[in-house]
């Protein structure tokens, strides 16, 4: 601007090709460049978002199906129940491996005399197949003695080759003979990919094809329920006090500064606090959703308080004046009028805080929710993991098949988050009031 003034005083001539015009052009070019930088930056951020989502989805979608192999299974009475007692204990410890082995020999007669080939063939069937057979026999002991063509889960090595995640050679963990059988089965339609129910009905497992998310989802659900039950009333009460009742003095200033700071304290520090207070001092059980929920309460409380205060502040003062003018006490005014009007905003903030809590894993690592837990927790007092921690655990696993499982777990997590955030946005849109 001073520049401009100087130019005009020394170069009074204004016209085509003058210095002033050149300079103006340069300035316009700079203007365009600057705009382009901004657009480019947004582009970079969105590019990363796109790469992240596509890399996860492209890796993970295949985990929602898994390979099944059709085998002519004979529920041989000699193998399953040699004593013929039909007792539960005998049936549940019976040799289902032998049943499968016999079925494999029936399907591929050439492996009957070749021990290596038989072992290689057995590697194609998941351990889950034995459990599947056991479940069928226990449910209906009359199956013993019959035979049927059954679809049984294939092992993760087969699954990975079929999906193209592993190379079609020795490195897949399958021998050449097994690979040849695999190709033959694919051609004859004896190998199919079906929806992967294990992913949603099983707990964690060392066998990738059997590992599921149910335990982690239930663990996350319990933790989140405890977080919600504790942090919603506490947070709203704190916000009401600070916004509606507290007089401005040193004490309330201190509380306010504290809340703002806590909102920015790293979550792992809350994890250390939870470890020290809830586990070491209060002696609550380790690795449980109860303690996880308490830790997440501490993490999400500041966020809820802050958003609830904003929602309360948005209620116009004349609502309060009108209520008090009609003879309401201050508490009646707040409870009957201000709070209901602020509720949509408070709920939106709470849902967003919950969405953040569901993705939080660092404090859960501190309180030991990283154990390998097969069983689905029945109560919040049972050891459990949580959804993001399951992602962490699977990501740390070296087995190739866990890569797609991890991505699938992330997809499930992101779907939960998307649903929660969409609910929040819907609530905000539907109940938003302009005064």
């Amino acid at each position, binding site marked *: *601007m001073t520049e*401009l003034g100087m130019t005009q005083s020394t170069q009074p001539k204004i016209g085509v090709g003058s210095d002033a015009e050149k300079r103006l052009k340069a*300035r*316009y070019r*700079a203007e365009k460049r*600057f705009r382009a*930088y*901004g*657009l480019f*930056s*947004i582009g*970079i*951020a*969105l590019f*990363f*978002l796109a790469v*992240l989502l596509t*890399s*996860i989805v492209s*890796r993970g979608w295949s985990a929602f199906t898994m390979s099944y192999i059709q085998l002519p299974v004979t529920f041989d009475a000699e193998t399953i129940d040699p004593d013929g007692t039909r007792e539960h204990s005998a049936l549940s410890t019976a040799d289902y491996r032998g049943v499968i082995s016999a079925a494999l020999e029936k399907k591929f007669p050439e492996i009957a005399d070749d021990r290596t080939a038989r072992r290689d063939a057995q590697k194609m069937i998941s351990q889950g197949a034995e459990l599947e057979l056991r479940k069928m026999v226990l449910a209906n002991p009359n199956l013993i003695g019959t035979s049927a063509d059954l679809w049984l889960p294939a092992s993760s090595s087969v699954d990975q080759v079929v999906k193209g995640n592993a190379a079609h050679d020795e490195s897949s963990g399958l021998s050449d003979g097994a690979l040849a059988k695999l190709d033959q089965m694919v051609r004859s339609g004896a190998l199919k990919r079906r929806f992967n129910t294990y992913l949603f009905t099983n707990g964690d497992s060392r066998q990738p094809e059997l590992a599921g998310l149910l335990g982690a989802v239930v663990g996350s659900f319990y933790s989140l329920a405890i977080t919600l039950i504790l942090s919603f*009333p*506490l947070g709203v*009460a*704190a916000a*009401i*006090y600070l916004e509606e009742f507290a007089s401005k003095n040193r004490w309330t200033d201190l*509380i306010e500064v504290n*809340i*703002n700071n*806590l909102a*920015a*304290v*790293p979550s*792992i*520090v809350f*994890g*250390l*606090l939870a470890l*020290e207070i809830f586990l070491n001092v*209060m*002696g609550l059980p380790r690795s449980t959703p109860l303690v996880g929920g308490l830790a997440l309460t*501490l993490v999400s*409380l500041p966020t809820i308080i802050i958003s609830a205060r904003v929602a309360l502040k948005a209620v116009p003062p004349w609502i309060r004046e009108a209520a008090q003018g009609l003879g309401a*006490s201050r*508490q009646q005014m707040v409870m009957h009028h201000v709070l209901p009007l602020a509720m949509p905003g408070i709920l939106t903030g709470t849902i967003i805080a919950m*969405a*953040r809590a569901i*993705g939080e*894993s*660092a404090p859960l690592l501190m309180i*030991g929710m*990283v154990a390998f837990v097969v069983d689905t927790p029945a109560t919040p007092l049972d050891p459990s993991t949580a959804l*993001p*921690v399951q*992602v*962490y655990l699977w*990501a740390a696993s070296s087995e190739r098949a866990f890569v797609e499982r991890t*991505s699938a777990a992330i997809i499930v997590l*992101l779907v939960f*988050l998307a649903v929660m955030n969409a609910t929040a946005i819907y609530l905000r849109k539907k109940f938003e009031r302009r005064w």
Partner: protein
Amino acid sequence: MQFLTLVFALLLMSSMVYRLGARQALRLGGTAKGALHSLPSYYGYYVALWCGVPALILAAGWMIFSPMILKSIVLDSLPPDALSLPAARLSLLMNEVSQMAANGDYRYASDDVARAAAERYHGLRTISFAAMTVAALSTALLGAWWGLRRVSPRLRARNAVEGMVTLFLIASSTVAIFTTIGIVLSLLFESLRFFAKVPITDFLFGLHWSPQTAIRSDQVGSSGAFGAVPLFTGTLLISVIAMIVAVPVGLLSAIYMAEYAHPKFRAVAKPLLEVLAGIPTVVYGFFAVLTVAPALRGLGASVGFNISAESALSTGIVMGVMIIPLISSLSDDVISAVPDALRHGSYGLGATHSETIRQVVLPAALPGIVGGVLLAVSRAIGETMIVVMAAGLSAHLTANPFQSVTTVTVQIVTLMVGDQEFDSPKTLSAFALGLVLFCVTLALNVVALNVVRKFREKYD
């Protein structure tokens, strides 16, 4: 679970007593105008509070204190040879005992002493719970009776109830203070125990970090295995890389959003940017390991650099991406808060839009932007999952972004996941690291929040 049933029973009792209270008030005062001091419902709440609150406080106190008392009873009843065990073994034994007693499953008891103690503990717990149930329920009944007796038309029920509510509101608002006190005390307590074993100067200024080797007690301190400087530099390196990515991208995005973008473009792009902020950090960690690190490694190999698979660069870049929305939304806010009068003045003097932004708007918004960047730095320092998954474990003192470094948070997680021994410096050092982390982020937050508030006050 049983405890929840009890709580539920108490709540049910209170809600039934509420009706009794309200009815009692109406019966005594009648429905005439002004006959009762408060609305009938307040008499109901009054009695319900008398019924529920003392009983719940009793039950909660019982739950908190009874395990300690029972444990000491069981400990006293142990045979003398078990009591003469070293402290660590004894606490291990007691852990086993309380585990078994909690499950009611003694099959895996290590010996008969543990089994007997566990059975005793289990029996005591059952008795204690029964006693608590009786005590809580009778307190509730007593409270309800007392409350009902006090109901009279002149009782200031509303004031009493509102007093209780206010008490609850105040108590809730102090939770934040207690959290802070809890953090400081627990970190400080364990850190002091750590500094009793390892001198604080060795910890803060030592150049060598290898806690895993310090298993034998005579090794500690003398070997200097707890020098945290490599962790600090590692954290700093990754944070700096993250800031190099996040500050320009975030700031320029914010400028474009606030100053140039068409409202329609803004309505689409801003939520998309915020999606980046909503993605859990564990997902970013997986992304760094699986996509960014191999890509960078390939890129490095093609130009002859050897980039480690756990390089600070890939971790820092992904962390930067995570922080972009934080910087852009904070900067967007402060840029929008700069009064239009300043812009109009600048246009009036003939400045172009970008000149106005660079020479008028940004200097005016600078304090707010600096505050936002400081908050982002504190976020980067405290970020855990990305570095745990993508950064290394071994502590290298280096400024080379292609090498792997470790950070404070990575070490806290590595030290705390798995077996914890609260008398070894290995576990305690995690608390010392946590204390450093808390102090640094707290200082950054206080400064940042103050700067931002000052900025707001200037233009509001």
